[in-house]
């Protein structure tokens, strides 16, 4: 581990990698600040830039973009009550009221300190947990991988809640369906290509990510006539001088930071949960733990109410790298895109990456420290200037997003068919999103689809065409039981609660 860390530190300290961390944090913060655009869009937009880079450098840039965008999203939530993505919604509960009360600088500073602390503490956990899990997962066979992927895809849907579970599962299946388009890698048979040579290689994941997120988000900005930052009084922002947080305030939020970091990290490790659940659970936990006097302040500008989700979502973002780097299973939509990028770089994700490409593994981890420091020291004082950039009118911003998306995809293949395909997919995704169907599971399903089919095929070949590997291999069986429990979790909880309520009402009678 020590050797790996040293490799990671030495690779991170290469000037190009330091520059990429810095660039990632800056661009991520900027894109994250734009209402409606979150880390998925930020990462998707920058992937084409990374294609010519060394895999470690590319991943460092993408990781910087990820947490930069989360930090940027918090800024936007606090200043104009418009969260860029679900993970920063909980930040608006107390961040925006605090800004309204005349403390926008303090709210932003607390958000920055908490993001830094949450991110840094979680990276320490990541450093310990990821190699340990990678060593354990070296004994995994294809049947275990297949089941693990089923678990990852199911977990995404399970965390969508009782009402959204079936919808998420259906969209995941749609993603798996799209993954089958193209030439079957084992038999060489064309599937769903309709005789078109443009579809022989299937749909590119970058195209799908751009179409379902960057283009769709930009279309939403127009459809809903969303003001990008028109409400923001840019001049007043420059006057903010007080980013100071007093010692008393630090003392107040310190236990919150520690608790939310631990909770956020472990939530992030669960496949499919990501920053959203991390931030909401941290907020909920903090409100429940707060004394009655403090609890009354929640939702009205409580410092603890701001610190908890901010720490939680950053810790969860770092946590979501554990399944990505060790098992090759993405924990969120953004890490799904990063998994796609890893595959595009020619790296096989999974435990072998820890052995074969330790420099990528460790550089991503070590660069996170650097990224968190950059976000704190450089981005915080630069917020007033960043916000000026964000004041770009919607009329200019949206076509520019379209342009970057098209160019990103076109310059990889130089095939105009890809642009037609992007438009078609973006329109379909827009309709599905208007009908309340989430798009992140689509990407997860799409990216894992090929790997899942390969592993299932291999397992069936090993077991002579029988499905008995599901119950004969203890590890596969354990993962399968966990999967079933994850599916049933939204139903079991209320059922148990109902049972106890019935029991207590009977005993009262």
């Amino acid at each position, binding site marked *: 581990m020590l050797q790996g860390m040293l490799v990671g530190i030495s690779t991170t300290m290469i000037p190009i990698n330091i520059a990429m961390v810095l660039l990632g944090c800056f661009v991520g913060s900027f894109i994250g600040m734009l209402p409606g655009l979150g880390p998925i869009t930020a990462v998707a937009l920058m992937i084409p830039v990374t294609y010519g880079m060394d895999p470690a450098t590319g991943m460092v840039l993408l990781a910087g973009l990820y947490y930069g965008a989360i930090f940027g999203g918090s800024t936007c939530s606090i200043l104009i009550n418009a969260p860029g993505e679900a993970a920063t919604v909980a930040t608006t509960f107390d961040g925006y009221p605090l800004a309204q009360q005349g403390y926008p600088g303090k709210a932003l500073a607390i958000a920055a300190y908490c993001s830094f602390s949450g991110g840094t503490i979680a990276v320490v956990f990541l450093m310990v947990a990821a190699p340990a899990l990678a060593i354990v997962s070296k004994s995994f066979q294809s049947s275990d991988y297949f089941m693990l992927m089923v678990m990852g895809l199911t977990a995404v849907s399970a965390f969508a809640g009782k009402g959204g579970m079936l919808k998420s599962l259906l969209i995941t299946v749609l993603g798996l*369906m799209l993954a089958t388009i193209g030439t079957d890698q084992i038999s060489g048979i064309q*599937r769903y290509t309709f005789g078109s040579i443009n579809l022989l290689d299937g749909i590119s994941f970058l195209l799908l990510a751009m179409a379902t997120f960057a283009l769709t988000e930009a279309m939403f900005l127009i459809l809903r006539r969303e003001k990008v930052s028109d409400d923001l009084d840019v001049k007043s922002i420059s006057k903010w001088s007080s980013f100071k947080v007093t010692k008393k305030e630090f003392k107040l939020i310190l236990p919150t930071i520690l608790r939310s970091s631990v909770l956020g990290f472990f939530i992030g490790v669960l496949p499919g949960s990501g920053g959203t659940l991390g931030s909401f659970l941290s907020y909920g936990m903090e409100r429940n733990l707060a004394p009655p006097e403090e609890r009354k302040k929640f939702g009205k500008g409580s410092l603890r109410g701001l610190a908890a989700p901010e720490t939680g979502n950053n810790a969860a973002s770092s946590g979501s790298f554990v399944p990505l780097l060790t098992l090759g299973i993405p924990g969120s939509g953004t890490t799904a895109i990063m998994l796609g990028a890893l595959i595009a770089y020619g790296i096989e994700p999974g435990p072998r990456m820890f052995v074969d490409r330790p420099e990528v593994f460790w550089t991503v981890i070590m660069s996170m420290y650097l990224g968190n420091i950059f976000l704190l020291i450089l981005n915080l004082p630069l917020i007033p200037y960043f916000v000026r950039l964000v004041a770009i009118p919607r009329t200019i911003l949206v076509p520019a997003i379209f342009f970057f998306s098209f160019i990103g995809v*076109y310059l990889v293949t130089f095939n105009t068919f890809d642009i*037609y395909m992007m438009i078609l997919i973006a329109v379909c995704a827009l309709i599905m999103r208007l009908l309340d169907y989430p798009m992140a599971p689509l990407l997860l399903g799409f990216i894992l689809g090929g790997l899942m089919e390969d592993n299932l095929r291999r397992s069936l070949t090993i077991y002579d065409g029988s499905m008995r590997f599901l119950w004969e291999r203890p590890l596969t069986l354990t993962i399968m039981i966990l999967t079933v429990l994850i599916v049933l979790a939204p139903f079991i909880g209320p059922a148990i609660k109902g049972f106890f309520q019935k029991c207590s009402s009977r005993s009262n009678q």
Partner: protein
Amino acid sequence: MKKEKVGALILLMFSIAYGLLAFKIPLSFLGQRETFNARTMPFALGIIGTLLSFLILVLPSGKTDKGDKVEDAFRGLDWSSVGFLIGIMIFYSITLRFLGLVISSIIFLVGGFYILGERRIWLLFIGSVPLVLFIWFLMSRILGMYIAPGEIFYLLGVIK
């Protein structure tokens, strides 16, 4: 009709079509005898997709919000701007090879800005020309990527 039901209906039709098309995937003689062949996964996915969308259609939806109806989801939105933008995107992809990356991108951006309501002529060009030229310079001159000039330049005899 509720939003999720409409979505489920669309996906039900898609899943059925996908499942049926799985039968048209050609198989080799040996492939037909294999337990797992190129058709297996699509066929299974078609069945699962059909089943899930059918369940969403049949089961009562949890939400009973007023804004849950499909009409509400599509009403009051700026469809005309999106429609025009989609039109200009298609125009962009058609002209990309003929006019080349630089000219077609500038037209696309100027058109896009105009559709969204920007009427300041200087901003239309200041927002588009430097951006496109910067991207072109970055890609072709700094990163060394070959970006083919538009066919129009050959037709006009600018490039021979």
